[in-house]
């Protein structure tokens, strides 16, 4: 079996700041990390690889420094790594991004399982995984918490609002992984990082994967971000205590005072 896991480099959201005046993200000085959901997907993929002797490819799209998350995958146990990097990819929205990744996966050849994180913590769209499946005309299961291989079947545990579903799928299929609360990310030892430099690694451009220019980058992106801004800060809340009718009276008073109600 051949598993492909998709990973993204994101700014560490714990450290992200927004420039209030310009409404843009301040990225200078903010460390980059692997998207935590992808980290979980990667670890699951490595477990599968170990248990079933699968081949594991880790793939990422991003600027040259995103090589870091690919190498992390290699150091943790993936067999080969691919970085999709090209100036022409810049500005791609989730649609264009999933098109680019799907073209790369087609180039890889026959694969059986694609794992993605549920969403990336910088955009929170949760669209790229499903987008890839769509471009590849492949079945997909989203929000998986666990994945197992049982002879030819793939069995996942998918979270739903009030519980979970166990779903069986046939390969090839794509799964997006949520991250359990108790997930403990693993980091590679020094020697593994060092040895990962000897594993196969490729950087592919638009031409390498045969992507068409009109479908990628800003031009190929149907979504355009208007602006980013932090939600306005709420004023201090006032807690109202007392019995129901007393409280209602107080609330109505406030409404009147603040001109919320025109009676």
């Amino acid at each position, binding site marked *: 079996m051949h598993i492909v896991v998709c990973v993204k480099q994101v700014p560490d959201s714990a450290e992200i700041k927004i420039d209030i005046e310009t409404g843009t993200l301040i990225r200078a*000085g903010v460390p980059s990390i692997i998207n935590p959901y992808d980290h979980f997907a990667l670890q699951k993929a490595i477990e599968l690889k170990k248990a079933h002797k699968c081949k594991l490819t880790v793939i990422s799209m991003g600027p040259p420094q995103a090589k870091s998350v690919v*190498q992390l995958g290699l*150091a943790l146990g993936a067999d080969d790594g691919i970085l999709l990097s090209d100036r022409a990819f810049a500005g791609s929205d989730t649609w264009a991004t999933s098109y680019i990744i799907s073209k790369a996966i087609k180039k890889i050849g026959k694969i059986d399982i694609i794992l993605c994180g549920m969403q990336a913590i910088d955009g929170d769209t949760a669209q790229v995984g499903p987008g890839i499946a769509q471009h590849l005309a492949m079945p997909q299961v989203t929000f998986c918490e666990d994945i197992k291989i049982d002879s030819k079947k793939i069995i996942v545990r998918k979270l739903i609002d009030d519980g979970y579903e166990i779903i069986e799928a046939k390969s090839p299929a794509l799964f997006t992984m949520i991250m359990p609360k108790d997930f403990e990310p693993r*980091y590679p030892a*020094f*020697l593994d*990082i060092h040895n990962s430099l000897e594993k196969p690694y490729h950087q592919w451009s638009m031409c390498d994967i045969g992507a068409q220019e009109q479908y990628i980058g800003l031009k190929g992106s149907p979504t355009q971000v208007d602006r980013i801004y932090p939600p306005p800060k709420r004023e201090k809340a006032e807690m109202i205590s007392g019995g129901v009718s007393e409280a209602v009276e107080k609330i109505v008073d406030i409404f009147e005072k603040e001109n919320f109600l025109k009676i």
Partner: protein
Amino acid sequence: MPSMDTISRELMLDSLRNYAKKNLFHEFLREKDANNEFPAEILKEMYDQSILGVHLLLIPKEYGGISGGTFDVYRVCEILARIDLGIATGVFATFLGTDPLSVGGTDEQKEKWMTRIAKENLLVAYAATEADAGSDLVNLRTRAEHVLKNGKLIGYKLTGNKQWISNGGVADVYSVLAMAPGGSSWFMVEKGTEGFSPNKHEDKHGIRLSNTAGLSFDNAYIPKENLIGGVEGQGLTQAQAVFGYTRVMVAAFGLGAGWEALEVAIKYSQQRIQGGGPLSDKQGYTHKLIVPNAVNLEAARAYIEEISERLDGGEKGLQTEGAIAKYAATESGNKTAEDAIQALGGYGYTKDFSVEKIKRDAKITCIYEGTNEVMEMTIFRGRWQEHLKTRGRYYIDMADSLQSLHLESPEVGADLAALAARALAVIMEECRAQRLTRHQHITFKLGKLISLAELAFIFAKRAAAVEYTETIKFDRNVWQAMSRVYAKNAALQIAAEGIALILGAAEKDIDLAEALNFNTIQALQKGLISDMDLIASKLKDTFKAK
């Protein structure tokens, strides 16, 4: 050995940081510190090849290591020091302990010991110091006597005592300096060797998580294969050969400890409201306790990076440079930690905040691996030779190159760094002419002034480069403001202290103000406060309190 690519190095640092985040939080370290306890299990994990394997950094690839370069070692040491300087010392002792072997070992010895250290995750100790042999190893008393069999040398018997040896009570292998009939020599000694025993763990001011113990040797038999290099009398040369980069490691310790304390203070200052506003907005506070420390630490970083790159590029020795790096970074680290306590006021003085411990820990960096006074002496000796050899041109040439740098990049303070170098040249020449270096005080002070001038030089040079440092957290204009502030201070301090030194010792009356360009140095102080304002505000933005 060249260093790794930035991405691989950053991945290692991330692994190290994440390990610390999970295992080495403040309460844990505080408890071990209070109990004077060596966290054996932590060191074992950090050496475990499948968890971290930090010790592999200094072991060549052919023996199962990863052949890290000096730049890698500097970065890892900086992060280790930010975590805990005691644990850092435990790792460092292994680095140090393998050095005599790397420098002087025969191929068979390297193969045997390095492979074992790598594969068996061995803790190593480096044992040079004795009761009467500290800064000066000439009075080494530990003896290594020949053991003969049928008239042929088969080994040595070691007798004597070592003192304050890091990992002394817990190491698996020791490199021990002893006086053999042919002169001082290094020996590899295994734990459990008959006649050898470690003494009790010392009760220390700081780095209490580092095991420090004396070693006793009483006719301990060491086979002759364990004489490093196989030839007696190479001990001091082997010890000297690596000072360039071992001192870079301790320099990185100073840098890491200093930044850790400073970051706590910067964050604290944004939350502490006194006098109607946060302390971070008060110049009397920031421009005394925060900004000068950030500037000094970053000047030291620039210097450490420069030297690391040169060592990685294959230059040998660099002992004077190693001494400058160690001296500047550890003096700044120690001062920063002290100021961080002050910055936190009463809170800083309690053990609830980490700065109190960092301050106790940081002090050791001024003492071990050559005390900072010995560094001043070493720096002076190294550069005095250059001054004589070049007939006084050494710092004039440096000033000239800074002057041309200033024409290309007028914003890095190279004009002031040039004045600093020029003033130093004048002072050294005056000392020569008046034979003032017979005063030890003057030579040590010159060591300090040399360090100031050289840091100003390197800081300006690196701040002018497009790619500054991978650790960058600030915009380029902040580095440049820092470089300007450093150079302003260096020029002023060199001129002022130089005057005090020379006039304090000289017999004739002289007026040095003109020769030192005192007026220009004075005029160029312009803009100092606004540069400091900029740095203060950027530090606040970069290290935002949560």
